[in-house]
């Protein structure tokens, strides 16, 4: 494995994912985030190039200031000094009505057309593997203008076609497949960010957009860990690596307690 995940490195592959996620947040974005790396991306963006972005969390939190990075989605720290506290229905309706510009989700699997599986591998009633289900992920992928999926990559997690669509990407990849299903035009997956690469979509199909060479990934390695013969963007580049300043903000301001070291939560503590 050539991927940097060593804490002794200046930054890890998880850090690269966080930074790539932050770069997707524009100054005036309304960003829906959940626990884990997306929280880090949103806070990093807020403390660097997007101080005015709005952060929305599904339990009913709307805020424009930073907060202490939590170990769980809803903590008193995440609630504290929010602009608005309300419920799941209200913030999801903001999404359904088209007001959330950028959504982040995790994923069990993601396929060629950006469909996400958080439900099961194999038959629904006799699965060989079960995840916990949609949570808010289906809503995010259904509603947000641009949805960004973040996950660690392996061939198993990048099948050509998922067994269960929990969150619709471009469904079967045909033109207008989302609209045919009843989803609004101008929504859908915009990017997939993994420890190896960043992917965008061309005509509803995932393509390699940039390789995380900063942490040792190569196009060959990327292609190895995809379950189909993935296309490569004509303008393929290296993923923009973290700057020293970004790493500093990440370490000192976003996660000073080192809760999400290497993209995984450190052991139990008080919420």
């Amino acid at each position, binding site marked *: 494995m050539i991927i940097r995940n060593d804490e002794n490195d200046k930054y890890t592959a998880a850090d690269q994912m966080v930074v790539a996620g932050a770069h997707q947040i524009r100054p005036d974005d309304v960003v829906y985030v959940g626990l884990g790396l997306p929280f880090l991306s949103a806070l990093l963006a807020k403390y660097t190039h997007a101080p005015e972005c709005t952060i929305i969390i599904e339990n009913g939190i709307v805020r424009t200031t930073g907060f202490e990075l939590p170990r*769980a989605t809803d903590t008193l720290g995440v609630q504290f000094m929010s602009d608005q506290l309300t419920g799941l229905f209200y913030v999801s309706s903001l999404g359904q009505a088209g007001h959330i510009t950028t959504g982040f989700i995790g994923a069990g699997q993601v396929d060629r057309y950006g469909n996400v599986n958080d439900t099961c591998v194999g038959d629904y009633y006799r699965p060989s593997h079960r995840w916990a289900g949609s949570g808010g992920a289906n809503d995010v992928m259904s509603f947000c203008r641009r949805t960004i999926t973040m996950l660690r990559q392996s061939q198993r997690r990048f099948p050509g076609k998922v067994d269960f669509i929990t969150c619709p990407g471009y469904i079967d990849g045909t033109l207008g497949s989302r609209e045919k299903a009843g989803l609004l035009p101008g929504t859908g997956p915009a990017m997939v960010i993994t420890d190896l690469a960043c992917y965008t979509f061309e005509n509803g199909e995932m393509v390699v957009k940039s390789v995380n060479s900063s942490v040792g990934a190569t196009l060959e390695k990327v292609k190895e860990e995809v379950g189909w013969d993935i296309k490569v963007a004509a303008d393929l580049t290296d993923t923009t690596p973290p700057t020293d300043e970004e790493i500093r903000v990440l370490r000192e301001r976003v996660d000073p307690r080192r809760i999400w070291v290497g993209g995984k939560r450190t052991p139990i503590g008080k919420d």
Partner: protein
Amino acid sequence: MNKVMTMHKAISRFVTAGDTLFLSGMQHGEPAAAVHEIVRQKIDRLTLVSVLVATANLLIGEGLVDRVLTGYTNQDERSYAVVKARDAGRLPVFEEYSHFGISLVLLAGQMGIPFIPTRSEIGSDMPKYNKNITSVKCPFTGEYLGAVRAVNPDVGIIHVQRCDAEGNAQKWGTMGVDVEGINASKKVIVTTEKIVDADVIRRDPNRTIIPSFRVSAVVEQPFGAHPMHLAGCYSGDMWGYYFDTGPKENYESYVKELVYGVKDWDEHLKRKAEIKPPGYFENFRINAVESDPIITGY
């Protein structure tokens, strides 16, 4: 009408085997004390509607649940509650929605309509396996949307910061699906950190989330949401709880000592304080910040 009673009485009187039960508190202030009492009273054949309620795993593990309407549940081997239920032939049917879908089935229930349209879930495979998600044609635009079926739980339980003796309940902080859930419920049990004078409620009536005539029982139960946090009251220990009830040995010891081994929640808290390291509960104290008052009057 004063509706104050003990937890034992509230649960035995208003929760019945076979009920559809709504549990409030999406990762914030869930009615943990009430859930423990339901387990202690072994009220079974429940259908559960909730979003991310941690202590719901006890109901499943103890074989009390037939069906779960959910957006997110550990259904794999890492959760001993699920393993135990499966081994006992008591694994519930999981009826899966998105989180927004759960809020909508409850909103439709609150509104008294049999279904509500949505753009969630429709592009997914969920409708194939959940007969209560389907599609509907908009009678104005002709477009197809998703539709979820309304749910009116037989009983809803909520834990709040303050409530008067008649049942006017006020909660703040994140609201999850609390407002829709309890308002959709036919009977409502309110457990509260503190019973306050009705005038406290009435000087800020916009904060009331359900009025007294909709409430059947009021139970005063300090620390009633522990191990979850509750805004203005205490922080939580969710991951600690998941560890305490995750692996088999932990789970079995927890239910033996802290559910069946105690007569009520006060005893549970006392016993837990003995088991945990010193200062466990003191650790949940918060640095209180007061809101500015609002003005009413005429």
